[in-house]
């Protein structure tokens, strides 16, 4: 089912979705775009390349309250916080970001003890994927192509969208998407030539080249294992690293969190808050011992986690090539280059 609307009617579509549930869509704000719960249909803005924070914020918000408690009252009085979970429409997600949900699913719900918060939010959400504009020049930071993701992959979306000038095409990809699209007023059916345009666009998505290097998950996992103890290599690539948390916070597949008790006047809330393996206190133990005091150890953890540990533990590479970490890095550290160095040249052996 391929439907269409026009960009100027976007607010109507948005309003329509807002009636059915929470609409989360890209919004332009100071500093750039971000996914936000829409309060005013006119806020939705699809003229964007990608958001600063990845859409993982929808399923894994930066803070998630677990329990409200009073430190002076018996523990029995503590009340679990019921997250408000409504049917949600996550609108305008780039294909690489859509892919990240799948990778995160493995960690949060498909292995070990399932995380109830991720699962419930994920179950309640319909994803509107949104193809990159292949007529633009590829962003120098991005490399999703390396991870086998096309600029217009509809996989993982419920509805997939494509913009052609003023027209927005919407195609139902999953049964849930089909259901939804069928019931949305204001959309018209696409013409056959438009359907062809749509299909061609998607098919050609893989021809749209971001930075690319041949990466095989199993092989690269081994490569990083081999290089893991090469301090010189890691020192060299981490020389510029500031050890801030930007790359992990903007990353769609970083899931580390801390559990904090925040109390004032005896009333408090236990919540989880994003944490980053780049922070020194991440692994600091109560005894004062810290296994990762050096910047190189932390950068190594981050990169090896994505390109080695994750593969061995869960299968896929924990990276979708969205380029956020590179784009927002204050010192232009480029994870892709590090991967490239590790894979191609066996660079470390020349040292």
């Amino acid at each position, binding site marked *: 089912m391929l439907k269409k609307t026009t960009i100027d009617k976007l607010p109507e579509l948005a309003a329509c979705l807002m009636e059915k549930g929470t609409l989360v869509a890209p919004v332009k704000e100071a500093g750039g775009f971000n996914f936000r719960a829409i309060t005013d249909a006119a806020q939705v803005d699809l003229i964007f390349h990608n958001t600063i924070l990845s859409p993982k914020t929808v399923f894994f918000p930066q803070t998630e309250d677990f329990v409200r408690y009073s430190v002076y009252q018996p*523990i029995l009085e503590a009340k679990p916080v019921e*997250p408000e979970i409504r049917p949600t429409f996550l609108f305008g997600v780039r294909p690489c970001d859509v892919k990240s949900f799948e990778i995160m699913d493995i960690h949060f719900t498909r292995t070990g*003890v399932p995380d109830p918060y991720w699962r419930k939010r994920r179950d309640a959400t319909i994803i509107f994927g949104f193809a990159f504009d292949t007529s633009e020049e590829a962003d120098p930071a991005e490399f999703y192509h390396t991870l086998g993701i096309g600029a217009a992959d509809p996989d993982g979306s419920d509805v997939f969208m494509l913009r052609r000038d003023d027209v927005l095409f919407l195609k139902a990809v999953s049964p849930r998407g089909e259901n939804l699209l069928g019931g949305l007023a204001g959309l018209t059916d696409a013409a056959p030539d438009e359907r062809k345009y749509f299909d061609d666009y998607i098919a050609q998505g893989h021809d749209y080249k971001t930075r690319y290097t041949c990466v095989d998950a199993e092989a690269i996992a081994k490569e990083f*294992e081999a290089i893991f103890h090469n301090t010189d290599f890691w020192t060299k690539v981490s020389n510029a690293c500031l050890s801030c948390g930007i790359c992990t916070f903007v990353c769609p597949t970083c*899931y*580390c*969190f801390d559990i904090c008790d925040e*109390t004032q006047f005896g009333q408090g809330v236990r919540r989880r808050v994003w944490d980053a393996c780049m922070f020194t206190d991440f692994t600091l133990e109560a005894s004062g011992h810290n296994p990762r005091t050096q910047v190189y150890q932390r950068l190594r953890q981050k990169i090896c986690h994505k390109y080695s540990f994750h593969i061995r*533990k869960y299968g896929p590479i924990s990276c979708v090539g969205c380029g956020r970490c590179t784009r927002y890095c204050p010192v232009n550290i480029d994870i892709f280059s590090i991967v490239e160095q590790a894979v191609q040249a066996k660079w470390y052996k020349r040292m």
Partner: protein
Amino acid sequence: MSENNPYIPMPVEISKIIDEVDTHDIKTFRFTFVNKDDEQKFVYLPGQFAELSIYGKGESPIGIASAPTDAGYVEFTVQRAGAILPGLVTSALHDMDEGGRIGLRGPLGHSWPIEFLEKKNIVVVGGGFAFTTLRSLVKYMLHKDNRSRFGDITVIYGARTPGLLCYKDELAAWEKRSDIKTIITVDKGNETWTGREGFVPAVCKDVAPSPENAVAVICGPPVMIKFTLPVFFELGFSKENILTSLEMRMKCGIGKCGRCNVGYKYVCSDGPVFSLAELEDLPRDF
């Protein structure tokens, strides 16, 4: 969200506090479950741990010191952490009285591989306060229903001084039993100490347990482990038959929060129990 939410602790009540050592910074806390359902759900084996949870302070992962055969309660031996600034949770717990209530999340992690241990001779080697889950294991194996499932049991336990030995009454009781060989040692004795003096690795060498159909289960401070492992290699124990338990900063305890990994393994959900063979597959610094 409260149903089966792995992040929400169950309430437990302190029914007993045992001051274990003469420095008073290690205590064993016995907890009973406030909700009987929770007791049913809290099914564990020796070697597992749980998060002790005090609202306003945080959570602390602690090995379970009691054995599943101890019905009606669960015990944890807790050291007040931190030299200059005490750990928030452990010091709050130490300040509590019997009757106080806290939260408990667990059981978490993998236990000592009981099935693997069955029918084998077990050498338990512990140092200082890290003896807790070993105590659980020994208690479990010594239980009348279980004793026959295991071969010979040898316990080698050491502490720096006699006053720093934990579970003194139990040790005394074990020493009297014939179905377990108990060797207690201290680095440095005192006027009243009549037992063995010497470091654990030396004592292990001295006792020289046979590697025949045997598994060594070792827990202790890093330096003890470092010097004890070669002794067991020399005695002929294979890497698969040497087990230990790792410690790492943990938060969630269920492999989600991402901080306790050693290589691709999360200590909390893939461990904390590892064989030496498994550890060799992991990076040595992390």
